């Protein structure tokens, strides 16, 4: 049995919908708990999903009551914005596209519409139409709020991955006492080469390195800009008292550099990382000798 409303309340479909949402909160939340967007995120218990659904219904009721059903910034949404963002983030991490999330949010509408039509059975057709329109607009706004947080979450993810790429792409490896190596992989654009230079110079200080090896086996293209970055890095390392060796120059790259006309003769280069390491060890006064031959016991 619905509560009694004043005649004025009943004439405003937004108030009507707000009242309906409050009264049927439990029922709606129960139905939503089985919808994909709630079920897949709140996997621990169904109660959790129901609880989340309740919060969203309450927010919708508050927005409807305030009359700002098309306003993404309506106060009512503020309460659930964080929860929606977490849900969107979880769905995105699980591999759902923005389109899928949008469809999942759209799927929340039919169960509520059904309940609303039940509630309004016997009411004048005009009134029913107005109320369902309000509900549709409201659910559409909710979907937009959700998608807005998805976009923000997606952008955050991209930014984080970009930063991670910058970091993980340039590990400095200690090969021996006083010898460090940087395996360069991928495109050496200006941002990457700046990070390479900084991490290498830091490592030279930290490891007391006398020799630094820049291995470019994983760099697909060495054009004049990449060559210039390499030369600058070598020059900076030299100023820090470390000798730099560029290794991993493949035959095709070597011929290309020659045709391009870049003079790398001021840089010590080796064909492979192994050659560079052998040279570096020799410079350090260490020698690699084969362990063959009988080991003579002392005495």
């Amino acid at each position: 049995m619905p509560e009694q409303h004043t005649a004025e309340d009943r004439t405003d479909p937004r108030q009507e919908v707000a009242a309906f949402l409050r009264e049927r909160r439990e029922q709606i939340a129960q139905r939503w708990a089985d919808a994909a967007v709630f079920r897949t995120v709140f996997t621990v218990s169904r109660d959790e999903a129901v609880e989340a659904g309740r919060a969203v219904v309450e927010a919708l009721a508050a927005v409807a009551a305030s009359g700002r059903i098309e306003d993404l910034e309506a106060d009512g949404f503020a309460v659930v914005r964080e929860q929606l963002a977490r849900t969107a983030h979880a769905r995105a991490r699980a591999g759902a596209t923005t389109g899928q999330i949008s469809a999942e949010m759209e799927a929340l509408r039919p169960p509520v519409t059904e309940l609303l039509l039940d509630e309004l059975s016997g009411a004048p057709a005009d009134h029913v139409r107005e109320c369902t329109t309000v509900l549709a607009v409201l659910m559409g706004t909710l979907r937009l709020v959700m998608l807005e947080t998805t976009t923000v979450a997606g952008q955050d993810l991209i930014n984080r991955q970009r930063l991670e790429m910058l970091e993980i792409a340039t590990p400095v490896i200690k090969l021996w006492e006083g010898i460090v190596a940087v395996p360069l992989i991928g495109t050496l654009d200006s941002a990457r080469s700046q990070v390479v230079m900084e991490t290498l110079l830091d490592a030279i200080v930290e490891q007391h390195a006398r020799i630094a090896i820049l291995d470019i086996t994983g760099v697909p293209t060495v054009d004049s800009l990449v060559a210039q970055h390499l030369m600058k890095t070598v020059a900076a390392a030299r100023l820090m008292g470390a000798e730099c060796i560029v290794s991993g120059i493949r035959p095709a790259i070597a011929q290309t550099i020659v045709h391009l006309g870049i003079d790398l003769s001021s840089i010590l280069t080796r064909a492979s990382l192994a050659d560079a390491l052998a040279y570096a060890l020799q410079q350090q006064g260490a020698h690699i000798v084969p362990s063959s031959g009988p080991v003579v016991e002392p005495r």
Partner: protein
Amino acid sequence: MTHTESVSARLPLTSDLDLVRARQHVRQMTAELGFSLVEQTKLVTAASELARNALVHGGGGRMECAEVTDGGVRGLRLVFSDDGPGIADLDQALSDGYTSGEGLGMGLPGARRLVHEFSVDSARGRGTTVTVTSWVARPPRPREGS
């Protein structure tokens, strides 16, 4: 007689990411056409230089790729164009070590040495168009003047 089959791709050159895409596209096309690894690397490197020129000096532009044939020999033609300030002195721009910016000054002359055919069309205020072509196996040419 050189026969252009069709422009297979038209890529924008408006950001660093576009340069990566342009290089990857040229690398893939040269591999499909059967270029040797050295020739692939040369053309990709030339494309990298010219695409960066269009981006840095021309304020952005585009690259067009087309497969070409000449007497049964297949090749790849790349056209880089921009609507930038253009090159006032082509001879100077094509000489080693001359730079209008902070580069090594090897981009344009270097790219010229990396490809089989090279032409520049530019004048101050008219933008710049660089056309380069490389062949899978360079067709033998009769020695001129003999």
